[in-house]
Every structure is written in C-alpha cells, then in structure tokens.
C-alpha cells in the first residue's frame, strides 16, 4: 500500500468520525452526512486508482451498476418506507461482507495466522446473519409478510442448533482450510439470520435493524483485520460501537430490554392475551362519529395531537396537518406531542411530519409535552396506544411498567382514533380506552381525519 493511499485512508477515517459526530446534533447533521460521503468517495477513488490493481474495468463497471441501482431506490422511496430501505441497505452491506469472507476462505492458504482465520469465520457467520436477517426485517416492514412475531414451538432449540452448527462448521473450516465446510457454514448462517428475526414483532423490528447494523459494522472491522486494512477496522468498529449504543438507546426509549426484543414477545402471546381479557371484561367503551368529535375539537381552546404508528401506516401525516391548520384558523391552540418512539423508528415521526411541512413550533417532545396535558381540552390520539397507556406509569405489574409515556390521561377529554379495539403491539389492554372521558373514533387514521376535516368545515 502506497503512502498516498494510507494518507487518504487516514483522512477518510477522520471524515467518518466527524460524520458520526455531526449526525448527533440537528444543526450539523446534514453536513456530517456529506462529510461521510466525501470520505467514502475519496477512499473508493484512491483504492480503484491504486497501482497494480487487476480487473479495473470490471470493478468500475460493478461500481457503476451498484450506484445505478441504489440512487433511484434511495431517491424514490416514500418517507414512510425509509425504515425498510435502511434495513435493505444494511442487508446488502452484510451480504458484501459475507462474500468478502467467502472469498478469503477460497484463498485460505494465504491466510497465515489463526487469528485471521477466526476473523474470516466471524465475518462469514455474522455477515450472513445480518444479510438474511435484514431481508426478513425488510419483508416485515414492507408488509410482504406478517409483522407479527412468528412463534413455532421448539423454534428456539432449532435456532440454537443451527447457530451451533454454523459456529462448528466455521471452526472446522478454519482448522481444515476446507472450502466445502466454509460453504456449509455460510449456508447455516444464512438460515440462522432468518430464524433469528422471525420471532420478532413488527414494532420491535427497528431495534433489530439497529442491532444488525452494528453486527455489519463488526464484520467490516473483522474483514479489515484479515485484509490488514486500518480504514475498514476504524470504520467498522465505529459503526459497531455506535450501533450498539444506539440499539440500547432505542430499546430504552421503548421500555424494552434487548433480550426481551430478541427472544420474542413479552412472556409469550398466551399470557398477554389472557391478561387483556381479564382486565377488559365487559366494560363499555364510548364511541362517536365525526360530527360529535368535530364539535368537541372546534370549540376547544387547546388541542394536543398524539401521532403514532397508525398514522405512519395510513400515511395520514398530510391530512393530519390539514386538520391542525383548520383548527388553528378557528383560533384553537394546537400542538403535537411526539413520543420518542412514535412511528416506525425513533425519530421517524419527526421526519414524517417534517415532510408534511408541520412547523417546528408545533412539535413538542415528550418532556415538553407532558406538563401541557393538564391544561389541554382535547388530546387526539391518532393510531397510538402503548405510548399513552397509563399502566406503564401506574401499575407495577404491567409488562410495560417503567416505559416513559405521554400523560394523555391528564387532558380533559381524550379521543382515540383506532382501527379496532385490538391492543397495541405489546398486547396489553389500555385502561384509558374505558375511561369516561375517553371517546373512540373507529376507522383508518387517514379516513377518520378526512371525515373530521369535512365535518369541521361544515360547522
């Protein structure tokens, strides 16, 4: 490696650190991302220009093909579909790391140290898990398959067996320099990735994407070790460390432990279901039509909008803004109360509302929103459930106890827009739904909001 290349790799490493630093603050985020892109481009150009590199036209052709596929995909994707796009890009990155490792297996006789061989096996296994795991998360979020946890009796035993098999084959392949064993190891790891993600519920998927992202980072670092390339080690480790941190932050914001996310729904769906039945009993709920709720909203002084997963799924952010504008024109004070994990990923709701041109002054983060609820006349919960469930605050035995929530129950009136009485993804009943001050408005979030807009216009 020439000195010029090494200097370029050093600059790129610095760019990546600055990029992550920049991305952690709203004001510098966009520049941070551009610095990262600049660093990456520099490293690629320098690598391709390196003297003695074979197959250069083929390499450039492959880069052009990859770019031509990625740019339209990234530019045309709808903002609501961003999480699955991130999952897909993470998956192909894991796939690339896996292929690099397989290639190293093929030429294993040149790998002279045991440490390097172990790094190769690590990359093959974790890269494969990241690849298929991410594809399954993509399928779940894209609704190509059910987002509910897929739980099969004995599945955990099978998963463990496959995992041990993959590790065993990996060790054997390292010991015997055997290509067929390496291929079997990779195959088992690909299956492992699928088994790993299948039991994860839809709303937990973002945490898994973040975790797989960290995994891919570590595989890149391991490949860097094998290829004796410090840039890959630095970049991969940075992503591995920051990704692990981010996964923890996300899980904490959801009130979940990472182990809980990975090993299926709380204590299994049956228990959660029976609790819900016991709690709900025969209690009556109050539901109303668009006209009643329109009157409630139009003559309120202060209204809080609490958007959730349901709003993102229905892509109702534009209609929601229309409703808010209408209310404001009638002199109603309106604010959005954003839970940190509203939407499909932490911060996703902010991106969606930004897309709908909601002014920043109307958005309140949880800590700012909670003191406001006691003076709020109507809190409108659009497609959210668990994040406003008072059980998280009040009932010590609840599985979501301790999760920070929006104190919607302090508002004078609560309107829930829901598709059905089905509990949220946590499978826990929400006592607030049965409270006398609560009104339910059934239907798809977008339809319901359009009906409300029409009804208020007619007042």
């Amino acid at each position, binding site marked *: 490696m020439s000195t010029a290349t090494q200097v370029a790799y050093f600059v790129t490493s610095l760019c990546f650190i600055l990029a992550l630093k920049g991305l952690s603050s709203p*004001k510098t985020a966009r520049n941070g991302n551009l610095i990262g892109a600049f660093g990456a481009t520099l490293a690629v150009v320098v690598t391709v220009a390196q003297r003695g590199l074979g197959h250069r036209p083929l390499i450039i052709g492959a880069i052009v093909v990859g770019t031509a596929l*990625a*740019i339209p995909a990234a530019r045309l994707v709808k903002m609501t579909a961003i999480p699955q796009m991130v999952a897909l890009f993470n998956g192909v990155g894991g796939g690339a790391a896996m292929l690099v490792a397989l290639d190293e297996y093929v030429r294993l006789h040149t790998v002279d140290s045991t440490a390097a061989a172990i790094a190769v096996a690590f990359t093959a296994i974790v890269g494969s898990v990241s690849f298929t795991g991410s594809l399954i998360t993509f399928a779940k979020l894209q609704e190509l398959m059910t987002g509910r946890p897929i739980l099969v009796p004995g599945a955990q035993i099978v998963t463990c067996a496959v995992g041990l098999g993959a590790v065993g084959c990996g060790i054997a392949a390292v010991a015997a320099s055997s290509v067929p064993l390496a291929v079997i190891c990779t195959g088992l790891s690909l299956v492992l990735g699928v088994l790993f993600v299948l039991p994860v519920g839809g709303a937990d998927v973002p945490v898994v994407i973040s975790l797989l992202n960290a995994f891919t980072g570590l595989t890149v670092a391991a490949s860097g070790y094998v290829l004796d390339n410090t840039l*890959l080690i630095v970049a991969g480790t940075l992503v*591995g460390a920051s990704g692990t941190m981010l996964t923890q932050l996300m899980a904490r914001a959801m009130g979940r432990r990472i182990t809980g996310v990975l090993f299926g729904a709380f204590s299994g769906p049956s228990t959660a279901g029976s609790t819900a039945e016991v709690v709900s009993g025969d209690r009556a709920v109050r539901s109303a039509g668009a006209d009643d709720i329109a009157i409630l909203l139009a003559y309120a002084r202060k209204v809080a909008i609490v958007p959730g997963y349901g709003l993102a799924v229905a892509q109702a952010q534009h209609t929601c803004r229309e409703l808010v504008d209408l209310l404001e024109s009638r002199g109603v004070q309106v604010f959005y109360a954003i839970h940190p994990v509203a939407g499909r990923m932490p911060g996703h709701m902010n991106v969606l509302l930004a897309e709908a041109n909601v002014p920043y002054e109307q958005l309140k983060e949880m800590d700012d929103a909670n003191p406001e609820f006691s003076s709020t006349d109507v809190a409108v919960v659009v497609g959210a459930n668990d994040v406003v469930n008072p059980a998280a605050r009040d009932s010590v035995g609840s599985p979501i106890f301790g999760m920070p929530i929006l104190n919607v129950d302090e508002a004078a009136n609560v309107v829930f827009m829901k598709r059905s009485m089905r509990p949220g993804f946590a499978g826990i009943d929400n006592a607030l739904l049965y409270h006398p001050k609560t009104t339910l408005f059934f239907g798809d979030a977008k339809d319901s909001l359009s009906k409300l807009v029409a009804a208020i216009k007619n007042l």
Partner: protein
Amino acid sequence: MNNVGLLTIFMLSIFVGFEVISKVSAVLHTPLMSGANAIHGIILVGAILITGSAQGGIQLTLGVVAIVLATGNMVGGFVVTDRMLEMFKGRNKAKAAVAADAKDADGRPIT
C-alpha cells in the same frame, strides 16, 4: 501492521464510537442509524481489493457481486440519509424566513 497495533486501533475506535453517540436526541436516531449504515458500506474498499487480486472465475464472481452490493449499501445509505435530513433543513429555512431570528435566539436546536 502487527496485532497489538491493530488491537490499539480497535479499542480506540470503540471508545470514539461510544463517545460520539452518547448524547443524541431521539429525533436523530433514524438519520444516525442510516448514516452509520452508509459508513459500513466502506466494505466496498475490501471488495475492490479482493476483486483486484482475484484469480479464477469463482473469486472474480464473489468479488464483483460484493462490489455491487457494497456500492448499494454505501451510495444508497448516504443518499437516503441526506433525503431525511434535507427535510429538517428545508423547514429550518422556511422558518427562518417567516420568524426571522427571534425564535432562534433561545438557542433551541432546529430539528
């Protein structure tokens, strides 16, 4: 480079990785994950290096497919992150035009 040198780099990178992320508002979790995702697309450099020294059809095929996938990861990752952040920025500008400086003065981050 020797193993101790590589281990040093590894350990320092872990600390830097933890340090830069430790205080991030939830608003930026999604763009940050996406940005970090783009950064591990740097595996492209590894893919180019193995393709450049490939011998025989199998190695070449593995390398070329790895390049296509890694490019997708890197380019797609940066572009999609920029699109997310562009929206924050667009609104920021619109706000500046309407509200002048008054509301920026309280030092609240524009997110």
